[in-house]
């Protein structure tokens, strides 16, 4: 029991140690690769063990420095955290394997692997922390390292977009800090569980809702929801394809994770207002994201707009705010991280093999690189929501949850968006993979490039085929989320 509690720090400390080891052995790239992959695989192993441990409802908690809760910084892992940790490690492993094959030497020398691991440290820390200021710290670790990953390579476009990304994120981080200050001013605590109790006690006070909306703006910017998503499509298109895959798969979902955490734990005093607002925002995000995607002719940009649209679905699960909708939302997030990662890896492979991502220049890739097309096809229809892939079960349970609670409008919207999702996937498939092969393609071996994406797609299929098991897991996560007293009791012990 206590052993697992104390080991909760591992997902944060392991990547840190890995990064330190890389910094200490400058210039030895082979060694760096070995360190990175060992670290990520250990993380994966640990998160699976943790998932097995929390599955039955135990919530391991520890307080850094053995300080008394709620004064110390708390780490806690419920099923949702453990699931997110696991899927994050899976995507990180896939992206890392892809990086080994495609990363150029200059980027590797400048510490790509170290910053990769530090991003993972920030991500894992955000999933585990039970303290809102500590959350800010982990977010900053993640963001600062992601600025570096984004600008590594220093292309003209890259620097322009990383500058935008940086300014917007610094702005929202400042607002985050302001929000934390307000919250501390009102409640006098920063511990999430303690906050939940204190905010409950202040029920009916208008300023709690104001603070809730402030946090919605902050994490909405980071998660790219309507109307704060404008920065995403360009900045996810410019970096190295492996970095795009990591960002596209993982980073925005950290924002979504935090929205799930705080809008199920802390800001639940006025759901009639806040969660309805979330639903409206979710619908707008879905629709505008997919409209953006439909008109794109650049593969990664199209996929980036897709991210936005998919974020809408996740927020929809949160906005409906029932046990089954939260479960569906959790399932959707996990499915989306895997599939989005796979799609970005395929797009990256296309870019690596042909040197372009412009759909107008491509065509007939299926004839030259059949496996690439097949993997893209499977990932694409999984995203659009066809059985037996994970996307079907995620969307199906989300619709079902919406219908159960009588939110017909948003269900209708999300169904419409699904059709457009399918359409835009078919658009990529038709332009890039279908038709006669372009004569300038070179026959290259590409098996090692698509293998990571293939693994992610296989996992998506496995999630679909093992839907019963996956759904039970996310249902358990959903009911834990809906009842904040479980989390509060685990942390505060009362």
């Amino acid at each position, binding site marked *: 029991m*206590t*052993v697992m*509690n*104390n*080991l909760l*720090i591992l997902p944060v*400390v392991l990547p*840190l*140690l890995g*990064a*330190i080891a890389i*910094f*200490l052995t400058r210039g030895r790239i082979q060694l760096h690769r070995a360190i990175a992959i060992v670290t990520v695989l250990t993380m994966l192993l640990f998160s699976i063990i943790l998932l097995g441990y929390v599955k039955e409802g135990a919530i391991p908690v*520890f*307080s*850094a*420095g*053995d300080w008394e809760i709620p004064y110390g910084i708390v780490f806690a892992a419920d099923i949702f955290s453990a699931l997110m940790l696991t899927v994050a490690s899976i995507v990180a492993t896939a992206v890392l394997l892809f990086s080994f094959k495609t990363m150029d030497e200059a980027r590797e020398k400048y510490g790509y692997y170290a910053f990769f691991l530090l991003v993972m440290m920030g991500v894992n820390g955000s999933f585990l922390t039970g303290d809102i200021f500590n959350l800010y710290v982990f977010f900053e670790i993640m963001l600062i390292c992601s600025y570096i990953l984004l600008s590594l390579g220093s292309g003209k476009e890259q620097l322009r977009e990383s500058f935008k990304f940086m300014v917007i994120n610094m702005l929202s981080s400042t607002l985050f800090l302001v929000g934390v200050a307000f919250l501390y001013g009102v409640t006098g605590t920063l511990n999430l569980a303690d906050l939940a109790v204190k905010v409950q006690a202040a029920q009916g006070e208008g300023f709690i809702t104001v603070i809730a909306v402030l946090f919605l703006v902050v994490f909405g910017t980071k998660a790219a929801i309507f109307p704060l998503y404008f920065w995403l499509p360009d900045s996810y298109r410019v970096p190295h394809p492996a970095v795009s895959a990591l960002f596209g798969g993982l980073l925005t979902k950290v924002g979504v994770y935090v929205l799930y955490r705080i809008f199920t734990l802390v800001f639940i005093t006025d759901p009639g207002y806040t969660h309805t607002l979330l639903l409206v925002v979710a619908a707008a995000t879905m629709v505008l994201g997919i409209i953006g995607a439909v008109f794109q002719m650049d593969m990664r940009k199209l996929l980036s707009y897709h991210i936005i649209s998919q974020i809408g679905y996740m927020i929809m699960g949160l906005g409906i705010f029932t046990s089954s909708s939260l479960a569906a939302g959790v399932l959707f997030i996990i499915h989306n991280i895997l599939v989005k990662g796979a799609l970005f890896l395929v797009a990256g492979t296309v870019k690596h093999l042909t040197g372009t991502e412009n759909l107008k220049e491509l065509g007939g890739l299926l004839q030259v690189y059949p496996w690439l097309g097949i993997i893209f096809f499977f990932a694409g229809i999984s995203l659009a929501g066809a059985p037996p892939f994970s996307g079907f079960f995620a969307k199906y349970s989300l619709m079902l949850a919406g219908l159960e609670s009588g939110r017909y409008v948003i269900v209708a919207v999300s169904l419409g968006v699904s059709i457009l999702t399918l359409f835009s996937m078919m658009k990529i498939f038709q332009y890039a993979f279908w038709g006669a092969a372009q004569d300038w393609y070179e026959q290259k071996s590409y098996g090692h490039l698509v293998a990571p994406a293939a693994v992610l797609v296989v996992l998506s299929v496995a999630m679909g085929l093992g839907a019963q098991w996956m759904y039970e897991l996310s249902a358990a996560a959903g009911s834990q989320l809906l009842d904040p007293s479980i989390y509060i009791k685990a942390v505060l012990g009362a």
Partner: protein
Amino acid sequence: MKSFILETVSKVVLFVILIFSFYLLLRGHNAPGGGFIAGLMTSATFILLYLALGPGARKQILPLNFRAFIPVGLLISALTGLVPLAGGKPFLTSAFGYADLPVFGEIEWATAMLFDFGVYLVVVGVTMSIISVLGEE
């Protein structure tokens, strides 16, 4: 541009600031001060040296690779945090006690000081790396 006054004054003041920064470092775990502020102050003395005598002299007097401070400091801090795990305590738990030193008398020690020392190294490393990149290249 060299200034005689700055050169003379900084040769004296430098040590005072440096000693004060160590003082801040040592008391930081339970009084105002700590690795971060001490690191900044130490870097300030190095920058003073740099301004007064120029980059060449700085390298002669302090032939240190400040960039290497960063990972070493991080490592010290991270390991200090991890040691308590072996004893079944949470991450970062600090042990402390009292020791009787010949000249200084009874002092309190805490493993948090080691953590602070790691922070100190990181801060000095980062600040000096930034200064040298901006100032020399």
